[in-house]
């Protein structure tokens, strides 16, 4: 009982801050509505980019549109949820340059946790809705085996995909301590990774297989689980049992991310303010 109270008491500051951030976003009402619509549209446009290609040629990399819809749904929903929680790690360079990060060091909470709870972008929920819709549609139009294995694979893929994308944001954050001005470099694997995750990985050349297949394990977030789930033929370099290995990919991504984050935090020497 007493323990429950202390946990709640410890979480209280985060809850209060998050609630305040959430309500502050609705102050400029017209802008907030536009924000929501824009986020929704952003995800729709990303789906449209995939659709247009499959409209021009019906089959790409061994997949048809209804199959890629499942890849897109899994990867995009996982990315949106990770973005909701960790997306504002992108703001780190702004804090670093302005020297406002020092304030975070003064508070008695872990730096990464503070950063994660420093903001919650409600508009990102709109984005997740599109991913969810695509996933639902993908599951409905494909012939999915609804046994225990199928459901378990779906859950494992979604959870580990989410963790993998979150790790990408943290990894990018860790690198920002060194890059500061070169912040754009990390969008190569954060947003480039999201783009790669929604593609049929079977069309990639060898260098991309290494980079986005394994080093930044994007193929594990959507493409591989889909192959396994729909029992599709896999390219030679990606045996279908890898579809179950999402958790391993997530662990690898987090190991990379935390290593980088700790290096970064130690490297930081203050803004001189």
């Amino acid at each position, binding site marked *: 009982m007493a323990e429950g109270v202390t946990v709640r008491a410890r979480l209280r500051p985060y809850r209060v801050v998050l609630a305040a951030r959430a309500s502050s976003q609705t102050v*400029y009402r*017209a*802008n*907030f*509505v*536009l*924000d929501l*619509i*824009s*986020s929704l*549209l*952003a995800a729709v*446009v990303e789906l*449209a*980019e995939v659709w*247009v*290609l499959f*409209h*021009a*040629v019906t*089959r*790409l*990399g061994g997949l048809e549109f209804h199959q890629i819809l499942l890849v897109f749904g899994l990867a995009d929903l996982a990315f949106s949820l990770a973005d909701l929680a960790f997306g504002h790690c992108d703001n780190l360079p702004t804090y670093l340059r302005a020297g406002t990060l020092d304030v975070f060091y003064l508070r008695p909470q872990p730096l990464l946790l503070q950063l994660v709870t420093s903001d919650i972008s409600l508009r990102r929920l709109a984005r997740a809705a599109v991913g969810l819709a695509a996933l639902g549609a993908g599951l409905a139009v494909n012939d999915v085996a609804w046994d225990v294995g199928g459901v378990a694979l779906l859950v494992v893929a979604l959870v580990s995909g989410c963790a993998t994308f979150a790790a990408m944001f943290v990894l990018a954050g860790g690198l920002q301590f060194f*890059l*500061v*001005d*070169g*912040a*754009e*470099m*990390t*969008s*190569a*694997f954060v*947003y*480039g990774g999201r*783009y*790669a995750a929604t*593609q*049929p990985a079977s*069309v*990639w*050349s060898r*260098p*991309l297989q290494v980079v*986005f297949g394994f080093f930044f394990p994007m193929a594990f977030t959507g493409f591989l689980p889909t192959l396994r789930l729909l029992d599709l033929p896999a390219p030679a370099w990606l045996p279908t049992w890898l579809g179950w290995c999402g958790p391993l990919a997530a662990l690898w991504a987090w190991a990379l991310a935390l290593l980088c984050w700790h290096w970064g935090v130690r490297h930081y020497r203050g803004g001189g303010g």
Partner: protein
Amino acid sequence: MRATARVYWRLLRAGIRRQSAYRLAAFGGVAANATFGLLKVEVLFATVRAAGGELAGYDVGRMSTYIWLSQALLGSVNLTGRTDIAERIKDGRVAVDFLRPLDVQAAEITTEVGRALFALIPRGIPMLVIGLFVGMAQPGSVAAYPLGAVSLLLAIVISVATAYLVGVAGFWLVETHGVQVFYLVVSGFLAGLFVPIRLFPRWLWVAAQATPFPSMLAYPIDILAGRVGLAGALTLLAAQLAWLAGVGGLGQALTRAGRRHLEVQGG
């Protein structure tokens, strides 16, 4: 007249100098754009091959030109909708701009064009080098180069002038982040950044052309990749000029109306 021209020339040079200060940022941009370029190569080449070697006038060579030129222009063409003027309107500094003996719109556009032109060097050239390694198709006639260069310049100015519209919406909205993200989302897609607009279904292709976005990317690249002939190139240039007149005129009108509407917050 000459004095005015000199002022704008100085603003253009100031824009160039300002951009040249961020070298590491440019390097970051190159890394990101190269990665996206390589991903686009795989998926778009696979698309062309799946269509039997040619799709809507693009073979692999022309598609390569399309991809690497569009990546090269990303640092110069404003597809993000972010502008300095939006910030200045929000915090009221724009009041000072109105006191200066310069046209607010023309000054802002000139500075931004200066930045965009400089960005062609650190962000554009590396993409072309990668493109040359991958292999790019060249246009059929020599005339395509000067026409393409003019079209490219027009593309930059149109993008800057359109993004300016997003900024001045702030006279009424104050916070323009929502409009800016809207611009960001729509512009890339309709400009043909990820998929050339000629690959769109017909209705979507027509819809895209009813916006200024193809003028910012797709048109100059189609001229330089040799996807259109001489007559086609001239038509595209005419379309660009029309869009420039349209967005430029609208920007001027909004700036004047906004000046009367402006309410500087705080003291």
